[in-house]
């Protein structure tokens, strides 16, 4: 193997010489311990290498071995349910072979070679195929059929194909091309810095439903869309990401724990195998890949982890699946870039971040999309990206938030005041937004209820009116409000406490279908409308403010998914309870009802 020599060490950055011919982003092994590294700068025969492992003990004169290959991942059956570090080392295997702590220089293939898979052809010998065409399938988990695709750049006639059993190295087909015959294995390698190709992109049309009421109803994300979750620590970024990983209706989940807590990954690892997919009843782990480069793991591998994750996600999208990737947190990724940039002595931009911060973030989110995949069957896939952002001190004006907001279409702004009051998810309904709303409205009106867009608008208007009224109350006190406004406050409080508030740790509350979301909201709005009428008919405000039926409204969210008829009953009860209240004709004039 060709080799060079270490001349410089500064934390995760190693300088080397004597590596002529080595390329940008080539993988190398550094020092006697053969630590993983990647070339990230070349100047006059000096090579800068970011090293994915702790560099203690590395010094000048030690060898640097070239590999001739760019930083790549293995793509094939066996990814699902896996836990990898930032450069796709299988952490379960490392633990088995090297112990409970991460040792340096440990090397194991990402896809286990012991595991035997059954390949079932989907085309016959003689078929003409192009890149992306599905040659056959492997049942990867109970939830995922793995489609073995013709690799990029390969076009021709299938010369050999048959059902086979074997590990990922097994040849499943041979394709006769212009340039000779190309054997296709069950897995392929792909350089993480290069996006995988698609035929074309479409604008998103379908919601990525999440079962989270504030998201699906007010700030929805589309399949193939992008969203960010910024917020100070403790405001609920990770819980939002976990909830999406659990309950969103994507076929495949890639969860990247980027520079965050070790225990949060353990949490996922222990919980997901126990949780069942709401549609299929299968363990959620069967559709999930985890990338864990926790905060205390080497910082350069943290930089790579996001690329590793997204390449795996693109690969499943290429099979025609809807894939969602969560990155927690993109700020740690940006900080890793900053640290490496600083050591390269690049000219710092804002807050020490490199000048290319914005373009790196943009090119990450650009890898999302609702697409037509490569392949003659014109199948469609999607890749949705959801990034947590951890702004210092919760200050949204900082560079990572700003660069992110320029490119993402959904903003779920987390608010620590709401979190302190234990209103979760602490998504601020006044500042958050979704640019997919009209698209999703159309979808929901068709698939859930024609009234969906109207109800949503009514509810949002109430919430906005509440904020104005609260300002007013702060100035003049509650008593100065008209009865109709008091009713508005009551109804918006119900929306907040009985609809928006959702406890991720309650078995029932953790997930709500679109149908049930609609029913809860419709019931609250039904109360509001009927109570307005009652006021007009002479019912006194104090009688309206404390009604036993409220308790039923408050517990709607805890009803089972199949208890949908119950909502109609509650609405009937509301009507009856209001009708039963005493009316005083004299106060009719006073009960001026202001529209929200």
């Amino acid at each position, binding site marked *: 193997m060709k080799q060079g020599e270490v001349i410089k060490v500064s934390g995760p950055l190693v300088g080397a010489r004597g590596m002529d011919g080595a390329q940008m982003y080539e993988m190398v092994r550094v020092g006697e311990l053969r630590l993983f590294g990647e070339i990230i700068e070349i100047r006059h025969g000096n090579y800068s290498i970011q090293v994915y492992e*702790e560099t203690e003990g590395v010094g000048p004169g030690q060898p640097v071995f070239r590999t001739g290959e760019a930083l790549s991942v293995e793509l094939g059956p066996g990814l699902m349910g896996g836990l990898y570090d930032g450069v796709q080392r299988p952490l379960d295997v490392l633990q088995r072979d090297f112990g409970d702590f991460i040792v340096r220089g440990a090397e194991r293939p990402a896809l286990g070679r012991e595991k035997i898979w059954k390949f079932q052809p989907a085309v016959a010998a003689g078929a003409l195929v192009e890149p992306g065409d599905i040659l056959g399938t492997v049942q990867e988990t109970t939830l995922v059929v793995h489609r073995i695709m013709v690799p990029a750049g390969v076009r021709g006639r299938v010369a050999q194909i048959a059902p086979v059993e074997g590990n990922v190295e097994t040849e499943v087909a041979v394709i006769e091309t212009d340039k000779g015959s190309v054997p296709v294995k069950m897995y392929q390698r792909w350089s993480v810095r290069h996006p995988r190709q698609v035929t074309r992109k479409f604008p998103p049309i379908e919601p990525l439903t999440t079962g989270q009421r504030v998201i699906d109803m007010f700030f929805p994300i589309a399949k193939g869309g992008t969203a960010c979750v910024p917020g100070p620590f403790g405001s609920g970024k990770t819980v939002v990401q976990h909830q999406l990983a659990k309950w969103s209706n994507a076929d495949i989940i890639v969860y990247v724990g980027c520079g965050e807590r070790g225990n949060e990954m353990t949490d996922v690892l222990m919980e997901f195998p126990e949780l069942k997919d709401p549609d299929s009843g299968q363990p959620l782990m069967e559709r999930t890949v985890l990338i864990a480069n926790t905060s205390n793991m080497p910082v350069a591998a943290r930089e790579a982890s996001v690329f590793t994750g997204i390449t795996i996600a693109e690969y499943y999208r290429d099979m025609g699946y809807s894939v969602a990737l969560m990155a927690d947190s993109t700020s740690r990724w940006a900080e890793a870039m900053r640290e490496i940039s600083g050591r390269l002595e690049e000219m710092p931009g804002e807050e020490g971040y490199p000048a290319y911060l914005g373009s790196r973030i943009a090119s990450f989110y650009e890898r999302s999309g609702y697409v037509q995949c490569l392949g003659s069957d014109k199948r469609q896939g999607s890749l949705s990206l959801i990034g947590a952002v951890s702004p*210092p001190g919760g200050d949204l004006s900082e560079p990572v938030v700003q660069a992110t907001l320029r490119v993402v279409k959904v903003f779920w702004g987390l608010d620590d005041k709401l979190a302190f009051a234990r209103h979760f998810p602490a998504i601020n309904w006044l500042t958050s937004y979704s640019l997919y709303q009209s698209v999703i409205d159309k979808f929901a009106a068709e698939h859930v209820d024609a009234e969906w867009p109207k109800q949503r608008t009514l509810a949002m208007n109430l919430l906005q009116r509440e904020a104005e009224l609260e300002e007013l109350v702060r100035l003049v006190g509650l008593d100065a409000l008209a009865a109709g406004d008091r009713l508005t406050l009551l109804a918006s409080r119900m929306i907040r406490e009985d609809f928006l508030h959702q406890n991720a740790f309650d078995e029932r509350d953790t997930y709500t279908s679109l149908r049930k979301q609609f029913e809860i909201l419709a019931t609250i709005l039904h109360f509001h409308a009927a109570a307005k009428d009652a006021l007009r008919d002479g019912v006194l405000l104090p009688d309206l403010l404390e009604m036993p039926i409220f308790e039923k409204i408050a517990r709607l969210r805890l009803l089972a998914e199949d208890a949908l008829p119950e909502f109609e009953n509650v609405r009937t009860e509301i009507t009856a309870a209001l009708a039963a209240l005493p009316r005083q004709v004299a106060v009719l004039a006073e009960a001026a009802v202001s529209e929200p």
Partner: protein
Amino acid sequence: MITSREYRTAKQVYGPLVLLESVEAVTYGELTDISTGNGERRRGRVLEINGDKVMVQVFEGTSGFAPEDLKVKFLGKGMELGVSEDMLGRVFDGFGRVIDDGPEIIPEKWLNVNGSPINPWARDYPNEFIQTGISTIDLLNTLVRGQKLPIFSGSGLPHAHLTAQIARQARVLKSDDKFAVIFAAMGITFEEAEFFIEDFRRTGALARAVLFVNLADDPPIERIAVPRMALTTAEYLAYEKDMHVLVILTDLTNYCEALREISAARKEVPGRRGYPGYLYTDLSTIYERAGRIKGRRGSITQLPVITMPEDDKTHPIPDLTGYITEGQIIMSRPLHMRGVYPPVDVLPSLSRLKDKGIGAGKTREDHANVMNQLYAAYARGVNAKELAVVLGESALSPMDLRYVQFAEAFEQRFVRQGEHENRSIEDSLRLGWELLALLPKTELKRIKDEFIEKYYPATQAGTAAKA
């Protein structure tokens, strides 16, 4: 590998750093022995190597250094600590050297103090309830074995008392496991250190404690080593000797200032408020050493103390800490001024691991519900109180007024407790219910009906519910 080489080629001394030239075959992170002209010896560590130039960080500072007099010996290994069970009951300096009257420690083995990251696959999720006897922690911000839960304090606030009280009272229900306390002092005053040592001595905890002490007048750069010494010892006791180790790290603010000093001397591009951009990563290599490992009996629980400069939670030190640790206990100056001990600011405090450590079989079935309700009610009461300050109490609805009363009672009866008052979780729950009974049952939306029926105090129920 060459084991030890000596150089007299120091050319520059600036801040805590020494720069040598014409040096060969050193490695990153290597430990050095530096002797000055008058024979004094100090410790250093290689921070950067560029060709034959080597930058060394000196733990005891560079005062009295003349480059031409320096002899720098490279020891061919990283920073290590000799560990043994005999460390229990002993006092060390920030570099792990014995400073009490006892004999030298005969190490069972030497460990690199930087440790290695725990493989996330090997972690076991912390879920064992630790009863600290403090209501605001046990009921609202539950501590579990293997958690890292910092105390965000301010200068002059009683964090030392609270930390000592936790160390004194902490126990796991139904368990007789071996435990140990590791106390790591970084730049704190002699009095504060004495307060802890005296408390450990009085309660007999000293025999099960290991102390690493770097005081305010000890070398600042040595503070970089202190938490690593402490945690290396903790890992040894927890994972090799099956002990449940509580590590008290005080005060991380001083640690971060030492880091900033080095960063400034290296002329690195500063991040916020002059702290280096890698502060987050550096802190995580300390905090993430808390935890549990599958198949091993021991655990490491961390209680780091941070004094927030100007009581500002958004200052980089508490901010980055909060992003790494599993929650935070925040102390409130206004509560302290009103004479409430412990002045725990409940609303912004948080234990992220509480959910898996509480409930039936661990604490009690209604724990989570009561906790959520107390939070929501207190938040509303505090809000209403603020409103009343502006507009007068007459501006509040009758219900809001009840919340104000609730908030006051909550601070005086629930938050406040004696420094030696050790409340069981049952006591804290009972107290919680008593306070919730100040509100009508219909307000208790976060509590399941069955629990209201079972636990809502009978005496006040009638009056409160009808109102």
